[in-house]
């Protein structure tokens, strides 16, 4: 069973190497990439089964025992994250291949796209299975370096401009993370997460507070938590649709995962839970207000993305098993649904020619399938029962009500309002783009859109193109996956709860890594 753990990282990395060699033959390269990610997906399924049945798996790389060597730790939380990421990465890859087959590779140099994509996948997996803070840092750097390349693909002016903002901000967060690792090493003399957790309570409270705040800022930038989220709506929408989709779905969640891991395992005392709740509140409200003001669907989705990070931070701030379990379920839901929405927007861009809701109209007639593929995840994100968005939010609200502090109730209210406003923004987009007829669009005195900000970079009319079957199928598969979150909500919530029990309180984690006697 232990061999499964390093394979999660090894398969994508080896796949990237082979994909690089076969760069001249696009078809062979695509095949290699799909095989690599499919194998990873199978591996992730086996891993989750093994971990859920037999408990946390710890692999000591090079045979050095845990506190000295580098440990790879897969508990239920990591296994769940790896599984969902692998599924999403595979679906987006198939979507990209469909797009590449239809358009040729004039806009995106495919020969480097696939290897970079696999390297990014490896980085994401390293971050999820790292049992050691420095390894987590390395995982972040792998995925960030690959994401810099993907974001600036083609080197057009808009992408370079967006890329520079993204890279400088990411670099700053990485440096902060590195500096906090240095300070943690100075304080407790180790970088192994379990051992840090064991020794952290001996550190003076003020030093603990400095370390905790520095880690939160570093991860908060990556997770796009208000007020550290300003970079996200500027940089994501300029990238190609599938790249935006996978960034929006996965990369911010790696930051959320890091916050979840450090807050529950290293700092179980909840010293900052009040602050985190307020941050969650502001993230929720300000993000969704931004979304309501946007006319461009991609930008609007970027704002809903950072708004919904607030729900996960809320669950983490609660710190109870119920809260963390709901946050884990919500992370899974959000990775899948947000990616699906961006993929569907990519389809909208192809049939409508642009993504501004002021200009789109009558798409339902053009393509009913895309209409449905956009509609279902939109309802889902807006929290309409019986979709997973509703289940996740309900879980969070119940956990909040159990805690019962005034702040928790304020957050529940804010969460409900955010959910409604998300629904408003998404349904408005759907109505304008799909439901209204083209004649209505010409008469643009509509009161719904007159206050909308038109993003200058966003409205570029591209030629309308046909939608390849492969792209539609990949999006449909993602929609089905999001529906599966409802059908299998019971088992999924149960495993989320077990995952939360693994991390909350840190004892289980420490015992699994270091052994019970230490």
């Amino acid at each position, binding site marked *: 069973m232990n061999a499964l753990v390093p394979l999660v990282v090894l398969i994508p990395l080896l796949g990237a190497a082979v994909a690089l060699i076969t760069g001249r033959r696009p078809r062979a390269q695509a095949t290699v990439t799909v095989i690599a990610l499919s194998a990873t997906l199978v591996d992730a399924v086996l891993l989750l089964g093994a971990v859920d049945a037999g408990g946390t798996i710890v692999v000591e790389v090079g045979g050095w025992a845990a506190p000295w060597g580098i440990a790879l730790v897969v508990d239920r939380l990591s296994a769940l994250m790896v599984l969902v990421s692998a599924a999403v990465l595979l679906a987006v890859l198939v979507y990209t291949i469909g797009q590449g087959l239809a358009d040729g590779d004039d806009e995106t140099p495919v020969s480097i796209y696939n290897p970079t994509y696999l390297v990014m996948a490896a980085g994401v997996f390293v971050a999820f299975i790292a049992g050691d803070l*420095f390894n987590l840092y*390395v995982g972040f*750097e792998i995925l960030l*370096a690959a994401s*810099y*390349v993907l974001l*600036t693909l083609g*080197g057009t*002016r808009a992408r*370079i*401009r967006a*890329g*520079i*903002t993204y*890279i*400088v901000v990411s*670099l*700053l967060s990485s*440096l902060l993370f*590195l*500096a906090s*690792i*240095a*300070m943690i*090493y*100075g304080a407790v003399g180790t*970088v192994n997460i379990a051992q840090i957790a064991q020794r952290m309570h001996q550190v003076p409270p003020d030093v603990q507070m400095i370390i905790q705040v520095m880690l939160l800022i570093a991860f908060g930038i990556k997770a796009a938590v208000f007020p550290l989220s300003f970079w996200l709506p*500027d940089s994501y929408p300029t990238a190609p649709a599938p790249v935006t989709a996978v960034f929006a779905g996965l990369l911010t969640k790696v930051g959320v995962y890091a916050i979840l891991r450090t807050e529950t395992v290293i700092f179980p005392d909840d010293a900052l839970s009040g602050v985190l709740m307020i941050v969650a509140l502001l993230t929720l409200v300000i993000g969704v207000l931004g979304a309501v003001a946007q006319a461009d669907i991609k930008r609007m989705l970027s704002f809903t993305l950072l708004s919904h990070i607030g729900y996960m931070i809320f669950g983490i701030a609660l710190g109870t098993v119920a809260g963390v379990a709901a946050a884990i379920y919500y992370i899974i839901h959000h990775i899948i649904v947000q990616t699906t929405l961006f993929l569907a927007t990519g389809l909208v861009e192809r049939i409508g020619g642009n993504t501004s809701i002021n200009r789109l109209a009558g798409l339902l007639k053009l393509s009913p399938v895309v209409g449905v593929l956009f509609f279902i995840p939109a309802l889902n994100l807006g929290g309409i029962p019986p979709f997973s968005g509703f289940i996740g939010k309900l879980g969070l609200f119940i956990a909040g009500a159990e805690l019962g502090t005034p702040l928790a109730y304020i957050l529940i209210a804010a969460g409900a309002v955010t959910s409604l406003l998300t629904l408003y923004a998404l349904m408005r987009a759907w109505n304008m783009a799909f439901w209204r007829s083209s004649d209505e669009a010409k008469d643009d005195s509509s009161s719904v859109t007159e206050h909308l*900000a*038109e*993003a*200058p*970079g966003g409205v570029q009319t591209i030629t309308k193109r046909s939608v390849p079957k492969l792209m539609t199928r990949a999006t449909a598969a993602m929609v089905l996956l999001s529906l599966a979150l409802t059908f299998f909500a019971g088992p999924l919530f149960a495993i989320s709860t077990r995952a939360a029990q693994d991390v909350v309180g840190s004892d289980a984690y420490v015992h699994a890594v270091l052994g019970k006697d230490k």
Partner: protein
Amino acid sequence: MSASLILIVIMAVMYACGIFMLLERSMTRVLIGFLLLGNATNILILIMAGDIGIAPIVGEGTTAEEIHDPLPQALSLTAIVITFGISAFLLALIYRSWYLGRKDEVEDDEEDIAVGERDVAVADEESDPEYGVDTDFDPEIHVEPSADTLHRPGGSV
């Protein structure tokens, strides 16, 4: 744990200079700022290694107490390699940016300009041209939104 004061002073100066440079508009200075910050962080890691001892090579007669802690050296080596790679990428990006725009500066955010221009447009419609907002304002020339244009018209500008 004792630390070398010289190292701490060097680190502090490098952090200060790095942050100053990072806040500049010129891309090349941002890169230099990033390099300074990266190296300051490496020095921080080395400071955290604690007491300075002999080279960490296990041999006859060396005890754990007298050798220097080798782990921070390994950490900073990794960090140096990562910083080096990212700097190379950033340099390529700066070159590309210069190639496209012929200037070595962070460009204005288009959204910000749009917000600035929109308010000027609203001001033009609403205010009395004789003593209202300066109607000669030409958004084509003033691409940078000044502090004034970001206020709502009619508010206390």
